[in-house]
């Protein structure tokens, strides 16, 4: 900090020679002229002094009979004097300072934090409707109003904070994580049955709600009722007097068979690149500058594009992208897969299929997939025996206790 002030004020390195050098130093101190870094060298001293104080030394020099030599000048005042003829340079520096000041009066970035279900775009779009977007003046932003309007617009947001940090508007959000599940449970109160979504044999069954209609070991068919939503209400004579409906809930695992078929051609087309042409370009916001003329695409050609983002911190307004478009012309020739290659391709596809099943919670117990290779095509066919959840939710139909109603009507007569 001291060095910065010294640079602003300007510092001169001075050497004085004469008989009464000590007196000169004492007089500087007496006249409140700060000097520092005093080095003695034979019959002369050298020291630093502020540029504005150099003129004050004249009477002291005369009184002490010493001679002054300026050895070095540094700092802003000297720089200004050296470049005083370069008016455009100073105009540039001044305009740069003014531009920075002018830009700092505007909002440039909106940062949204803590949002999970509401995306940044949704919130930014709403803010844009309120005329809060990059480029507006900072004075026109009222954080309290933004907070209040966000709370009104998005009821699932339980806490919002809006603050201005430099030229950035920071919106911090806390969403109500439980609100969604509460709403969904309210809508899921309709009675539902569980039915089989495919054919299979029941291996395990844990019923939490509803009346089981099948048992372990039963073969079921697609669409068959597994757990019904109603529970019968019986009187002392074991007669059904009504039904209570609920949402059937159960974990039902069944052994099912999944068919598998995958086929590929034994031949493929190999691309052989003949020549390449490179077209560099720049994208500045919506403007695109291409440095070389682009050639029209031919039949057998492919275009590869690589882009490097050079500036992107001004999210919505400024982005500078450097890109390179490589156009490759190629010839095609037909090649044939070897037997080993075909086996590898089909095996990897089958492994991928099995991995996908495992991710879904399906357990594979057996598979009978075999590879058949013909001259034109090759295929992997067979079936997999798996254990998987089989239950599927199905809207329940309400039952009416007709017999009981008929009986009661008869007794009244």
């Amino acid at each position, binding site marked *: 900090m001291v060095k910065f002030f010294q640079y602003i004020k300007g510092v001169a390195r001075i050497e004085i020679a004469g008989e009464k*050098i*000590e007196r000169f*130093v*004492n007089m*500087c*101190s*007496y006249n*409140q002229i*700060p*000097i*520092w*870094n*005093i*080095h*003695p060298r034979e019959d002369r*001293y050298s020291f630093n002094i502020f540029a504005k104080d150099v003129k004050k030394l004249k009477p002291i020099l005369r009184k002490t009979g010493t001679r002054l030599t300026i050895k070095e000048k540094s700092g802003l005042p000297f720089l200004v004097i050296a470049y005083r003829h370069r008016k455009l340079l100073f105009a540039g520096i001044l305009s740069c300072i003014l531009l920075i000041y002018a830009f700092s009066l505007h909002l440039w970035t909106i940062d949204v934090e803590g949002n999970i279900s509401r995306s940044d775009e949704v919130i930014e779009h709403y803010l844009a409707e309120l005329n809060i977007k990059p480029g507006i003046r900072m004075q026109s932003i009222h954080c309290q109003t933004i907070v209040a309007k966000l709370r009104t617009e998005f009821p699932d947001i339980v806490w919002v904070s809006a603050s201005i940090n430099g030229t950035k508007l920071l919106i911090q959000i806390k969403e109500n994580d439980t609100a969604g599940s509460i709403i969904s449970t309210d809508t899921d109160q309709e009675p539902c049955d569980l039915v089989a979504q495919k054919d299979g044999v029941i291996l395990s069954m844990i019923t939490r709600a509803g009346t089981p209609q099948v048992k372990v070991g039963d073969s079921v068919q697609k669409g068959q009722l597994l757990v019904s939503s109603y529970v019968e209400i019986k009187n002392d004579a074991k007669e059904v007097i009504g039904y209570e409906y609920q949402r059937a809930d159960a974990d039902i695992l069944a052994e099912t068979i999944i068919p598998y078929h995958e086929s590929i051609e034994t031949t493929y087309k190999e691309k052989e690149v003949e020549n390449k042409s490179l077209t560099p370009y720049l994208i500045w916001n919506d403007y695109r500058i291409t440095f070389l003329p682009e050639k029209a695409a031919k039949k057998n050609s492919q275009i590869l594009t690589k882009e490097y983002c050079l500036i992107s911190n001004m999210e919505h307004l400024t982005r500078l992208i450097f890109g390179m478009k490589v156009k490759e012309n190629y010839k095609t020739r037909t090649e044939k897969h070897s037997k080993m290659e075909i086996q590898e391709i089909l095996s990897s596809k089958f492994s991928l299929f099995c991995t996908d099943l495992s991710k879904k919670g399906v357990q594979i117990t057996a598979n009978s997939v075999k590879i058949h290779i013909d001259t034109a095509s090759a295929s992997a066919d067979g079936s997999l025996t798996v254990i998987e959840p089989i239950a599927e939710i199905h809207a329940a139909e309400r039952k009416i206790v007709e017999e009981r109603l008929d009986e009661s009507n008869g007794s009244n007569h």
Partner: protein
Amino acid sequence: MEHSPQSNMKKKLSQAASLPKDVICHAPIVTIVGKEEMTLENYRGIIEYTDNLIRIQTKTGQIKIIGSTLNIEYYNNDEMKIIGRITCLEYL
């Protein structure tokens, strides 16, 4: 160095009233940090200054600093700072 009756009086007064001597008697304040740094207050001026010797006039007498590569980092009306290899400090 013999003390004048006035300075003796001031000394006694500062002792009796528990006042700092640097204020009443204008005694120099010498602060030495290690062997290579020294600050001095309450002085009148420099009498002699070379690489190996600095003689400073104070109200109560002279201070002689002997050493090597002695430099005055700053020098103003209130305080001065000396850096370099200090080997000896004498009150004359």
